[in-house]
């Protein structure tokens, strides 16, 4: 664990892997507001408040699994995205193999960001690693299922975006009328199903 300054009112705590960050985020958020990143937890409090808490929590028994088991979601996808063939080209697979790779893993919501309801999905097929577009598209349709780096993601609403789009879903992802407006939350799992 590495503690880095993030201004005078927050501290960035860096971990060696995503799961460890998520477990620590769960523990820290009981005491202070946090923002979970890929392998980091930003704690929104001055270092003088965070450091003693980290010390105290380090001394107590350290769980190896998250306390909260996330919800399991199945998301149905039409794999007809504009970048499907490009992803196939980059990864050296056929489009059908890309779809099979994307639908045969159970992914985990690593963390949230970019936009309300946007979940960075981790633990996907390691062959599906692709760079972002050099120039982001000004308009990406809501429900676009896309890849960037080792992440998968679904655009909850129309926005600009630089991820490679391989499909689309009609399922809801963000709805402020619901008690739980973001469907996918850190720790949840997602299984994509081709239709």
């Amino acid at each position: 664990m590495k503690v880095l300054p993030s201004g005078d009112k927050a501290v960035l705590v860096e971990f060696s892997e995503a799961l460890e960050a998520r477990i620590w985020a769960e523990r820290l958020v009981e005491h202070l507001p946090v923002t979970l990143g890929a392998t980091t937890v930003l704690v929104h409090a001055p270092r003088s408040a965070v450091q003693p808490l980290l010390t105290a929590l380090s001394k107590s028994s350290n769980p190896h699994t998250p306390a909260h088991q996330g919800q399991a979601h199945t998301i149905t996808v039409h794999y007809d995205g504009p970048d499907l063939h490009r992803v196939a080209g980059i990864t050296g697979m056929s489009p059908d193999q890309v779809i099979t790779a994307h639908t045969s893993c159970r992914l985990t919501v690593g963390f949230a960001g970019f936009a309300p309801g946007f979940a960075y999905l981790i633990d996907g097929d390691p062959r599906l690693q692709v760079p972002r577009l050099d120039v982001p598209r000004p308009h990406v349709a809501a429900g676009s299922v896309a890849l960037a780096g080792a992440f998968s993601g679904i655009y909850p609403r129309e926005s600009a975006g630089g991820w490679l789009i391989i499909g689309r879903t009609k399922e809801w992802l963000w709805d402020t009328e619901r008690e739980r407006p973001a469907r996918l939350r850190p720790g949840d799992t997602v299984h994509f199903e081709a239709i």
Partner: protein
Amino acid sequence: MSIRIVESTGLTLLQDSGRFGMSALGVGPSGVFDRRAFQQANLLLGNDENAAVIEHCGGTLKLTATRDHAITITGALGPLAIDAQPIEAGRVVQLAQGSTLTIKPPIVGLRYLVAVAGGFNAELVLGSRSRDTLAHLGPEPLQTGSTLNVGFSTVAAWAGSITPLLPTGEFRLRVVLGPRDDWFTATAIEQLLTTVWEVDPLSGRVGIRLNGPNLERCQTQELLSEGVVRGSIQVTNNGMPIILGPDHPVTGGYPVIGVITDSDTDLLAHVRPGDTISLSRHLL
């Protein structure tokens, strides 16, 4: 109990203190940019400290009242009038039923706050009345013809006035280096702290872009997205620093070279395109 926007040229938004602890939903803080001016306005009027106000940036704003309201204007400084009669900023004035408040573009600063006794009412979205311009959350931007309901006020307003807090000339802000200052060359760190940066026109509530030398990295791998705060100075892949504002996304994939001290971020509400900013190192 309402106020109508008769004319708005510019960006006219409702803001309160924002949304907190929603990062797991991908929802950022948003909220009023100049928090000190917000606190002043609500103190003057005897309002709840989180009562929503109008944050206006840009051209002319004209409001009329459908009944008598006590109002105050804080933040930027410029020509203010009620029915062509000039009024003072930073003190409570009466906007009588049928009267029109006219706010012209500011002389000093950029964002005016218009507050009313009782606060502006609008539907709460995730606990706040703030408009998040990045996430498109909260009350729609106010336009000519919009009507805002006003809450009840039972507290007497304060008869005194407050002193504006705005600097003139160059903005001098303090910066805490990190969390990713070690991703940049020593030259880049020196440039960050010695350059007189110019504010780019493509700046707003999401971030203030700075024109100057390109800050060079010594580590060029992709950063895994991590949490950012209001005041984080992200450096894009082409070396341009962007200071994040209240509507920043919750996580970012560009390395943050330093973070403006929290109290200095209020001043960023008032930097205009072409203004200059210099940064000095603040040691924790």
